[in-house]
């Protein structure tokens, strides 16, 4: 091949690089290793992590069973090793699954359109905020303190340099739901959108429609956020919301120490052209057969460049496919039964613990231990091979004696009983 290229050595291909920028040594990295050694390395790292623990952690990342079919499907080379489906004639497999994904997200959220995925829930929120700003021509975002704290941090990072003001509104000490009066006070004609989460960070179901009414009165949009997709199997979606931004990790996406996950944005038809991210649409091929392709690309960076609705390019396609398979496996009955089991488990655990808030909750709730430190309690639990809840002090100073607990279909009664008993001591 060198000959064909008319060079005598591979080095010749780099001879035009200025010598002073060349690296005149090998990279200082260990020599290449075998499959066996590499998997041994990662198994050893895995063993340093928590294994064999029961856990009551949620807070945006949930411990749900992953049906075997999920990896069976995403491991097929035809899905795993294909690129973004720009060439529709040899990408109908991916395109069809995206179209099905978009449809199922609409069915779950009650929205009219959904995109093909965002990086994750936390980045979907600022994208939704920017979208609202474009639509309303306003630049102020009101965000609930009951939105996931890390989501709020991401929102602030994104908003900061776009002249978008981000202001928070509070929650009621009794119910742990958004403080509608506080929201109403802060709403003004510059407000592009009100952003809240339901079930909120405390696991409590918000009255999104009430907040939406307030927002709409001032010409602002309502952005609803979800982190626990399983709740949608049981919860009435917020019909009054204008945009829904969510995280699908609960749908067969392993926690994987924080990612990759899949975010999504759903909204009303009329806002499509302001939507970020890829969209698959239905059309026909030259034989008149139904076919799918990526569409409305004029919103996107590769066409619109600095005027694009977002800079997103690579998204989370394969992860979204996991969610698609998950939704297919559970289906209509399954998503409901699954949600009901989560509800029952969390309520069983809650029934044995001191709850902080009175609001209705799904599979997470805040437990308060006046005078005790959540860290100490978690320490006791570790000895029982249980990872307790998330101490809330770091995010909510006023809740420093509280922890956020989660129970899912994977939590056994036995584990929950042990947790309660250890506490009782």
């Amino acid at each position, binding site marked *: 091949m*060198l000959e064909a290229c*008319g060079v005598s050595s*591979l080095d010749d291909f*780099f001879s*035009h*690089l*200025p010598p002073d920028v060349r*690296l005149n040594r*090998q*990279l*200082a*990295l*260990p020599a*290449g290793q075998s*499959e066996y*050694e590499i998997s041994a390395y990662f198994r050893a*790292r*895995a063993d340093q*992590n*928590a294994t064999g*623990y029961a856990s009551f952690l949620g807070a*945006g990342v949930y411990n749900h069973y992953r049906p075997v*079919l999920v990896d069976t*499907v995403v491991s*097929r080379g*035809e899905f795993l090793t*294909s690129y973004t489906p720009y*060439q529709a*004639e040899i990408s109908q497999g991916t395109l069809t699954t995206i*179209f099905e994904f978009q*449809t*199922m997200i609409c069915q779950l959220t009650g929205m009219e*359109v959904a995109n093909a995925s965002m*990086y*994750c829930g936390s980045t979907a929120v600022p994208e939704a905020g920017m979208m609202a700003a474009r639509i309303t021509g306003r630049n102020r975002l009101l965000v609930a303190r009951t939105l996931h704290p890390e989501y709020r941090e991401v929102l*602030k*990072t*994104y908003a900061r*340099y776009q002249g978008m003001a981000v202001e928070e509104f509070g929650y009621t000490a009794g119910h742990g739901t958004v403080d509608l009066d506080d929201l109403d006070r802060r709403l003004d004609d510059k407000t592009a959108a009100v952003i809240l989460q339901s079930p909120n960070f405390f696991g409590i179901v918000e009255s999104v429609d009430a907040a939406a009414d307030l927002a709409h009165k001032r010409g602002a949009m309502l952005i609803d956020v979800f982190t626990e997709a399983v709740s949608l199997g*049981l919860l*009435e979606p917020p019909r009054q919301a204008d945009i829904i931004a969510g995280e699908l990790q609960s749908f067969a996406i392993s926690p994987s120490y924080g*990612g990759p996950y899949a975010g999504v944005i759903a909204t009303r038809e009329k806002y499509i052209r302001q939507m970020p991210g890829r969209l698959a649409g*239905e*059309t026909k091929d030259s034989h008149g057969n139904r076919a799918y392709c990526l*569409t*409305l690309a004029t919103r*996107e*960076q*590769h066409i619109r*460049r*600095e005027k694009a609705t977002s800079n*997103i*390019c*690579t998204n989370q396609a394969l992860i979204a*496919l996991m969610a698609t398979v998950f939704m*297919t*496996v559970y*289906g*209509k009955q399954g998503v409901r039964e699954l949600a009901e089991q989560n509800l*029952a488990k969390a309520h069983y655990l809650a029934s044995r613990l001191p709850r902080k808030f009175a609001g209705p909750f799904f599979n997470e709730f805040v437990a308060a231990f006046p005078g005790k430190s959540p860290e100490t309690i978690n320490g006791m639990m570790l000895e029982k091979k249980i990872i307790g809840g998330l101490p809330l002090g770091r995010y909510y100073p006023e809740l420093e004696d509280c922890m956020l607990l989660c129970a899912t279909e994977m939590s056994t009664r036995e584990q929950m009983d042990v947790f309660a008993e250890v506490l009782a001591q």
Partner: protein
Amino acid sequence: MISKVRSHVTQNEPLLFELSSPGKKAYQLPELDVPPVDASKALGAEHVRREVEGFPEVSEVEAIRHFTRLSTWNYAIDLGLYPLGSCTMKYNPRLNEAVARIEGLAWAHPYQPESLSQGAMEIMSALESALIEITGMDAVTLQPAAGAHGELTGILLVRAYLESLGNPRKKILIPDSAHGTNPATAAIAGYAVENIKSNDRGMIDLELLARVVDEDVAALMITNPNTLGVFEEQIARIAEIVHSKGAQVYMDGANMNALVGITRPGDFGMDVMHLNLHKTFSTPHGGGGPGSGPVAVKKHLEPFLPLPRLTAGHAGLRFDYDRPRAIGRVKAFYGNFGVIVRALAYIMAHGGEGLRNATMDAVLNANYIRKKLEGYYELPHRAPSMHECVFSDARQAKQGVKTMDIAKRLIDYGFHPYTVSFPLIVHGALMIEPTETESKRELDLFVAALIAIAKEVEEDPEIVLKAPYGTRTGRVDEVTAARKPVLRWKPAD
């Protein structure tokens, strides 16, 4: 005549919703071991939905057949060459998939105690060190989720840095050959974009650059090798010019596959850059993602890196949240850990020498294709190619055949097309990046196919204009799709 493929029956398959029939199920849940809870009582009737309307109901075998059948409609790296320029579609060792699924890694919760997360943190710190060595930069954050996300992070770092010096400045310079994410990113970071024209060698024009760089310029976003696959030979000078006016140089590292082990951005004056782990370091692209876009910076930008920062504490590794000058978070948690695992596995499998060899093979393959095809397709820029080569459809356009037509015809020959009509500075571009994992055999078949198509264009352009013929789906009408968007299935009424 077409020796790479033959046509074969493939199964049709309706949408899930058309397949669905009431009562079917593909799941089973464990029996509930706690008392059931009445949802309307617990949540309030108004909060409880009747059902998820239209949601599918299929059996397990229908589910697996559905996705298996659909998968057979896709092209993939596992099936053949995938020469998308700028995408680095290399083969992805399956070992990476296996290690990413090891229980203690795949099921690690981001909030589990740091004392019980040391394995995950060690992996992250090992990758950070490797990337520092590979890029020659001083610090790395693994938080960004993809390249574009890394760009945003990087530009925010520049902004925060300049702000700390008193003035964030107004604009970002971007060569007209740049990828669309560059200008899009600059805009989100609140900067005005000024495009700068490339010279006829497809590189940055130094005079022009010297003229446009001023105190309003926050940074130059440069891709090196650029999207023509050409190494900016004056890169050091370019950095000097930019720095001379107190601006920063951002390097889009999407094309690092051409440089690893050969030269390091940190050694030629770059201040900040992102890497696409899902390209250079082989995470399978999965039909569009996931990715991971670590950002590497020089010392002066380190204080501004996103929260939290992985640091060595007395009791092992820990996350540092106490960094007042940080830009904040760009993503919840710590980054796309699963992709980080794959990238580290890839680097471990290759080692320093292996990575360098991969780079050289990637450049060899691109140059081989360039050499074999330059007699048949127009080569608008003659500067030496690195990991990819860019032709134009100038000759074929005379017959009314465009790069997209040639791309579609390639499908009949059994290949995924190259990247079509990018970079924008080449009219009707054919952007070809074979990567190092392709065999001479596959390259020769690809070259033969493009030569055969060039002949078809001469002899009977019609053939090419109506392609593809061999696929189960004929040429797709994208215009109608955009004109009357149908973005979800609805029951026929």
